[in-house]
């Protein structure tokens, strides 16, 4: 059995900048995770729920209309929107809740932005009959009322967070504060590849199923690997899940798409890697949007799931090693892409995923006909219909 410790950093990024009270819990989590990932039964159980409960593998759909209309390479959409609860988030939640059960934790807490991670956590906790509390910023509660309603129906307690800017970062602070107080019996299910070590590694490992499936599916369909990968990046879990299995391939161009909000030269965006600087947030060293005194700045994106001032440390690392390129898409461009994909393929994407589609619309026309592009369609857009209608009417 491999009992070695996991690397705490990705280059200079990552680490464990948390209150001492949590350190023993992080060490316990790391040890238990190392055992679990080397335990055939655990892996078998995880794969069982991914298949039977979430409906994996998700299709790698050849988007014929999109391909023809954009006039470049062949476009495939990885349909994470077809997972149970409508996004990739459940992959990670199933893994972490199974870990929590293994560790005999009686209570689950989570933070959520768009509500997708909260719904996924509430769902899995309902199935396993574990008490669940979700922290959600009051601003996000307003924009994502449907998901709040779902979580409550599923039996979770939704705790509105009014501190700070009332969004994802504040919900994360509040979840960490809860964990500091209840660390002995509570498991904190983090929703993205963020937070203190070992979370970024654990979440990545549970999400890499996305990329592993793409690898197998594209070999079956095209008998070769793709040339381009595109995914949106808030904290970055759907992107890391897609990118990670391909990170050692030299010929694949990888694009992470951040939220440019009203524009990266305004003060209303969430383009962390594009515009941020090195600092510490939520227990990790990474790029973040901060002022010269290290105060975290308010961020903006029309998509609640990308509205985050930090980014997963492994993305920061992929950026510095130039393994992946990080670009950004404005609210307007994302809305346009949302409507475009809905009409042309009959697929309503989440506003988060619409950022990836918007970048695809810029990139695809410049690619060659025989290039292969894979876009991660991380979630479905039902939750965003209200936002879209407020933004400028229906289509």
């Amino acid at each position, binding site marked *: 059995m491999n009992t070695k410790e996991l690397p705490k950093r990705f280059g200079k990024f990552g680490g464990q900048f948390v209150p001492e009270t949590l350190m023993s819990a992080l060490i316990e989590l790391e040890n238990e995770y190392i055992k679990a990932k080397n335990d055939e039964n655990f892996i078998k159980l995880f794969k069982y729920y991914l298949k039977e409960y979430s409906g994996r593998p998700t299709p790698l759909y050849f988007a014929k209309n999109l391909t023809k209309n954009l006039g470049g390479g062949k476009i495939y959409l990885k349909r994470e929107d077809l997972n149970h609860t409508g996004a990739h988030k459940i992959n990670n939640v199933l893994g972490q809740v199974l870990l929590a059960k293994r560790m005999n934790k009686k209570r689950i807490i989570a933070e959520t932005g768009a509500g997708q991670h909260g719904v996924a956590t509430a769902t899995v906790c309902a199935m396993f009959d574990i008490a669940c509390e979700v922290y959600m910023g009051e601003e996000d509660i307003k924009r994502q009322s449907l998901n709040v309603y779902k979580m409550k129906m599923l039996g979770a307690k939704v705790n509105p967070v009014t501190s700070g800017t009332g969004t994802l970062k504040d919900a994360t602070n509040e979840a960490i*504060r809860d964990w500091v*107080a209840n660390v002995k019996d509570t498991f904190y299910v983090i929703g993205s590849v963020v937070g203190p070590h070992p979370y970024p590694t654990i979440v990545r490992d549970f999400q890499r199923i996305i990329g592993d499936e793409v690898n197998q599916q594209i070999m079956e369909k095209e008998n070769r690997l793709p040339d381009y990968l595109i995914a949106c990046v808030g904290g970055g879990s759907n992107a890391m899940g897609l990118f990670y299995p391909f990170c050692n391939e030299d010929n694949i161009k990888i694009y992470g798409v951040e939220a440019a909000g009203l524009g990266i030269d305004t003060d209303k965006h969430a383009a962390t890697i594009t515009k941020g600087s090195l*600092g510490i947030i939520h227990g990790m060293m990474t790029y973040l949007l901060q002022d010269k005194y290290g105060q975290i700045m308010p961020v903006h994106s029309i998509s609640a799931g990308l509205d985050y001032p930090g980014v997963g440390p492994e993305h920061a690392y992929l950026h510095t090693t130039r393994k992946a390129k990080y670009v950004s898409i404005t609210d307007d461009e994302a809305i346009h892409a949302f409507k475009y994909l809905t009409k042309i393929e009959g697929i309503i994407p989440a506003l988060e995923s619409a950022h990836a589609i918007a970048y695809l619309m810029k990139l695809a026309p410049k690619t060659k006909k025989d290039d292969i592009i894979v876009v991660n369609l991380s979630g479905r857009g039902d939750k965003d219909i209200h936002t879209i209608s407020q933004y400028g009417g229906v289509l």
Partner: protein
Amino acid sequence: MESRITKKFKELKSNNQKALITYITCGDPDLDTTIDLVLAMEKAGADIIELGIPYSDPLADGPTIQRASQRALNSGTNIDSIFEMLSKLRKNTDIPIAFLLYYNSIFAYGIEEFLNKFSGSVDGLIIPDLPLEERKELQELLENHPIDLIPLVAPTSEDRIKEIVKATDGFIYCISSLGVTGKREKFNLDLKYFINKIKNHTDTPTAIGFGISNEKNVKTLKDFADGLIVGSTIVEKIEESIQTNNNVIKNVYEFVNRLKEAF
């Protein structure tokens, strides 16, 4: 170099006394008041002052100190204005001062720049999000300054205690119980056992913090350690005084005085 904190604990010990450490947030509600509050707390009997540097995301703090942080940020408080405030304050007092701050405040400013700036005026750093695993870089740079890195030990630290308290100066910040800063209903009886466990590994003085809110708490806990830290309740007095237009300085002075008398 021996810091003002270390000297103070030696002095107290030779007189068979314990340290009263009081916390306020810099710039709550403004920096001029901070100067007056520090001097008033000293006069009322505080031995060491803990000054919070306001931060946008204080994840180890409860609602009371979060609000203080917000008030301070709203009044435009930042590292540079805090430095100016301290320069004025140091003309009037030699009381030991420790900063309570989040690591990003030092990191974003530039670690060396920060230390050079505050060397001489500040005597200790308490950084709630810088555990043993991450403190090496700062600790090495601190060797050139009379500033102590005050380590925090939690009830969950267990076999980490030995490493945490190794080669430390100033004092050991013993976290009374799980959770963030703020009042507690009651203290666990194991607290004495917990502090003794820490003392087994170090000669550095110990101080208990988190949740100590009144004279009764002081009487219960004073014999357990070498000092007691009171924060959120003082900040509450400040908040109440602002809201009711009462004399902030007087209220804080009287409260600290009552705490001192309970020793």
